[in-house]
């Protein structure tokens, strides 16, 4: 997804131009709920300094409680030492986020506590505390989960390889089979189309018997594909993870064995 939504209307005066977070894709003010709050903040600071100052530092802010919210969060992030672990920092700052303690709409336990305004104020302290605690716990959990899945993803990426196989079709004719692109966030169907265009040959996404997707390109273009991948999608595909396999020899041996 594009980091900044470039809408057709952005050229015209009426449509509002909205910046979306490049990390979690939400509007930046919702980043705190995205599970990658820390990263989002860094991204915003680097890419959209204006917005960052508006959201994260003690600037002029409109609704009164917002000022409280964001100054609190800003001071928390400023005071956090660089070596403070992310989770601790976030769990410290999130409770401050919930400054307007309200009965929780979705917790059945508390729905009977949705009372006339007076009772709300009376219940403020206890309610806010438990609500805060729960929200903090939730946020921490979410963040941990996000971090975990990211780590798993990175590991998977490092371990897996893109295989470019040359398969013999007919003595002198070959097809090139590409396996394992989807791990690196590339879409098989699209790549197949691009490759077809690039080499002016037939190229299609096929599902193998095992259910895995692969791209079959007609002709022997292994080396070219490898170069093309590195050139066009070099940002996603590490060089060391591309493997060239030539099936020819094996096939020949097989055929020889079959003949004999």
């Amino acid at each position: 997804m594009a980091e900044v939504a470039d809408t057709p209307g952005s050229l015209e005066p009426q449509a509002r131009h909205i910046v979306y977070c490049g990390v979690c894709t939400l509007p930046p003010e919702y980043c705190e709920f995205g599970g990658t709050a820390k990263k989002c903040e860094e991204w915003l600071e680097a890419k959209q300094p204006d917005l960052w100052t508006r959201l994260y530092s003690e600037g002029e802010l409109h609704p009164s409680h917002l000022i409280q919210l964001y100054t609190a969060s800003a001071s928390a992030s400023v005071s956090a030492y660089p070596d403070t672990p992310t989770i601790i920092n976030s769990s410290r700052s999130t409770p401050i986020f919930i400054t307007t303690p309200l009965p929780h709409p979705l917790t059945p336990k508390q729905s009977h506590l949705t009372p006339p305004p007076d009772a709300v104020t009376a219940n403020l302290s206890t309610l806010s505390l438990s609500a805060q605690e729960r929200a903090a716990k939730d946020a921490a959990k979410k963040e941990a989960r996000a971090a975990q899945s990211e780590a798993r993803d990175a590991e998977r990426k490092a371990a897996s390889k893109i295989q470019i196989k040359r398969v013999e079709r007919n003595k002198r004719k070959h097809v090139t089979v590409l396996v394992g692109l989807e791990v690196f966030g590339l879409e098989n169907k699209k790549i197949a189309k691009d490759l077809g265009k690039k080499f002016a040959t037939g190229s299609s996404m096929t599902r193998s018997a095992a259910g895995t997707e692969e791209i079959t390109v007609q002709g022997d273009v292994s080396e070219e594909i490898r170069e093309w991948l590195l050139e066009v999608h070099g940002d996603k595909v590490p060089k060391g993870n591309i493997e060239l396999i030539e099936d020819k020899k094996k096939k020949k041996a097989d055929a020889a064995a079959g003949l004999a």
Partner: protein
Amino acid sequence: MFKKEIPTSNRSKVKSSVQRGLRQRLLEAYPGFEPYIEEIMPKKGSLEAVKLPDRVTLYTIDSIPLFFQPIDGPPIPHLKLVHQFPSALPTIQIDRGAIRFVLSGAALMAPGLTSPGGRLPEKENAFEAGQVVAIKAEGKEEVCMVGTLKVGTEEMKSKGKGVVMDEGHYLGDGLWNMQLD
């Protein structure tokens, strides 16, 4: 409605006659888009229909999502469109505590709207059940959810509990994260 990730599915061009009808329907449902319609759906632009699960169709122009049409009920604008023209839709507001539930896909419940942080329209402008509304959040500028109300706003105020909207399109759901290009 779109809690799961949506797999990329096939899309097809929409006939221009159908496109005109859709445009008409969109304007009927949301008069608020009237001044901007030429910007949203230029007459010349070619609309594409993308099939989503549950017999929902998403309409896009140049890979930019505009609105989706469930098999029953009115078309609902995509959140990106709502963000561009926030004044086009009637809006209600939830309190801060409810945001995290909404953004994780829970059904919207009445207390999140009736509490001090929430905002519902006055009695004269009350919304009926079935109205499509945008939902803002306390302390935020942008809309975080769109969907069809299950309960009228006056009833919410009097009852103060229960599900208000159970199938909405919210920030970070499958439709939001869908890759269209």
